[in-house]
């Protein structure tokens, strides 16, 4: 790492235009600018408002079930034969993933702004379910945009959203996955900007979304820090989280950024392998560009057209990544690596058999890398995996790969 990060440096980011170094910003059509500036102003005010924060904390406790446990995976550790492996159990949250931390926060913002119509994009469907859930609770109209391919591979979550009263819009354009769902959500937003709040599901999008989603997810890292000190008397040596847009990873990393002894590993979707070009790993194999309102690492061709992506995990199947990760990569604070579909599937089975915990295929990417990493570390060292979600939604995918019809 070139220079030590300090609290002052961190609180100065993003800057007033939403930049994390060369990344981030606000690249949207003019129609949305006023709404984004209002959102930024209101969020910065509410961030300091004790009543807003108290309501948020209360909801996380009573509705989501926080704090989520920090669990010592003893058998996995023994099988691996290296560092102690701990799991931050975001899979135990209401709705089954970390996504709900953010939707609680943004729905609260929407209420403060008086918006009654909510839109969201979703890949794996976890963010869609978490959005539909908070909308049901608050009596808000909910529209979820989902790529047609994801509608198929995550059909369970589609039905959950419908049961929760949301309207699910299947998106047929482009590659029919998460990026196209986001395009369509932006189109809806530009059309209905007067009465609609867009709940973005990850730390991407135009400023102030990367900032506010990170703040809402940072509860993961704050709890982990405290629990780690309580349970082991020290900070972890390494944190491992999967990176789609990057919200569970930044939520885990952010409260540890100035703790130099803590190594950070973001695990991207290696798909069929980085060498094949069929993956979703912009930080490992992309270059900076502009998409969905921010400048960040992207998968694109030489002409600046966004490339198709592949991952067995719908939630990681995205050609971009949150701008703060791009910055953390460039300053060398976090390491970004990838694991393949096959490695993630193997890790899914391993965690299920060894610990009785079925991870989401997204989270299984983090498990796969952590197991490799742990084997290279000492027995008195400690790794925390952010187990961002549970695997129920992926049973169909796994069964299909096993040739079993459910």
């Amino acid at each position, binding site marked *: 790492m070139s220079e030590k990060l300090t609290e002052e440096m961190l609180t100065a980011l993003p800057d007033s*235009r939403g930049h994390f170094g060369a990344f981030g*910003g*606000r*690249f*949207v*059509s*003019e*129609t*949305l*600018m*006023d*709404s984004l500036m209002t959102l930024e102003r209101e969020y910065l005010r509410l961030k300091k408002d004790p009543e807003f924060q108290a309501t948020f904390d209360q909801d996380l406790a009573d509705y989501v079930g926080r704090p989520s446990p920090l669990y010592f995976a003893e058998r996995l550790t023994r099988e691996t034969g290296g560092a102690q492996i701990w799991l931050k159990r975001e899979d135990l949250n209401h709705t089954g993933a970390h996504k709900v931390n953010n939707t609680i926060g943004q729905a609260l913002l929407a209420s403060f702004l008086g918006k009654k119509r909510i839109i969201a994009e979703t890949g794996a469907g976890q963010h869609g379910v978490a959005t539909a859930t908070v909308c049901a609770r608050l009596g808000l109209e909910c529209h979820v945009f989902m790529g047609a391919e994801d509608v198929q591979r995550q059909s369970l979550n589609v039905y959950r959203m419908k049961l929760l009263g949301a309207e699910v819009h299947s998106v047929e*354009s*482009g590659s029919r996955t998460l*990026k*196209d769902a986001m*395009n369509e959500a*932006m*189109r809806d937003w*530009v*059309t*209905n*900007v*007067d009465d609609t709040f867009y709940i973005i599901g990850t730390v991407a999008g135009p400023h102030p979304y990367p900032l506010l989603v990170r703040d809402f997810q940072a509860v993961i890292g704050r709890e982990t820090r405290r629990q780690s000190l309580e349970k082991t008397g020290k900070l972890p040596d390494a944190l491992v989280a999967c990176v789609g847009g990057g919200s569970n990873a930044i939520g885990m990393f952010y409260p540890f950024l100035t703790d130099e002894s803590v190594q950070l590993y973001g695990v991207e979707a290696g798909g069929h392998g980085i060498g094949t070009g069929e993956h979703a790993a912009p930080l490992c194999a992309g270059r900076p*560009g*502009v*998409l*969905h*309102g921010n400048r960040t690492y*992207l998968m*694109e061709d*030489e*002409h*600046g*057209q*966004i490339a198709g992506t592949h991952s067995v995990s719908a939630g990681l199947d995205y050609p971009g990544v949150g701008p703060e990760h791009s910055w953390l990569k460039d300053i060398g604070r976090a390491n970004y690596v990838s694991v393949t579909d096959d490695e993630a599937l193997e890790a899914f089975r391993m965690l299920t058999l060894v610990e009785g915990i079925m991870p989401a295929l997204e989270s299984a990417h983090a498990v796969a890398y952590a197991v490799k990493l742990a084997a290279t570390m000492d027995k008195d060292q400690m790794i925390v995996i952010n187990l961002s979600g549970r695997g129920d939604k992926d049973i169909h995918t796994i069964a299909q790969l096993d040739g079993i019809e459910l």
Partner: protein
Amino acid sequence: MSRIEGVLQTLRSQGRKALIPFITAGDPHPDETVGLMHTMVDAGVDIIELGVPFSDPMADGPVIQLASERALKQGTTLRRVLAMVSEFRQSNDTTPVVLMGYLNPIEAMGYEAFADAAIEAGVDGVLTVDLPPEEADKVAPLFAQRGLDPIFLLAPTTTDERIRAISGHSSGYVYYVSFNGVTGAARINVEEVAARVAHIHELTALPVGVGFGIRDAETAAAVGQVSDGVIVGSVLVDTIARNQADIEALKLALTDLLNPMREALDSLAS
């Protein structure tokens, strides 16, 4: 004076309004675009907006999304679009050409390389939908210095403060988006547009072009009455889609669409 300013000043002095078509470059095929541009000039257009296709056209409705897909499938790239403008310039050095699109293809080419190549090709202005002036603090001056007019959007949601600031970054004209929505929607409310454009005219001396939702001679005339020009996009792109198999029929269809608009706009001249 830029080619765009020249054309708009002449029109203004004649009490006439600019007819500005938008088509996606490379649709239905890169080899046809220059011919379509000449056809539109023959039909009386004043400035041509040439869409640079992008894989993720977030501000566009289905008609222009599909046009971008067709153009990309035929191998259209930003460099190829610049080559089309060069070819167009071989027999036309009076009709201004504005490239309209998204930022990433320009970013991928490199801003300086793009600006140099665009001027070399005979491009006059650049409108990048997802680049508000806040993010254009280096790009807009670079374009202006090379002689490209940076053109920015104004929307129904734009505050007065922003209208002033955006106009300050623009040259050539400003593009008023007539409603909140994507291209191709049919939501235009002419009275609302008239009131907004009159207000914009109080805040900037730049000519105001109005686009989104103009589909025929009637809407063109109604909007032309209150603005300096009308931008017609989706209805032309839709015509291209429906006639892509027969280029001669396509040229006739475009002419049949543009002629009545031209007449309607000119009948406004006092």
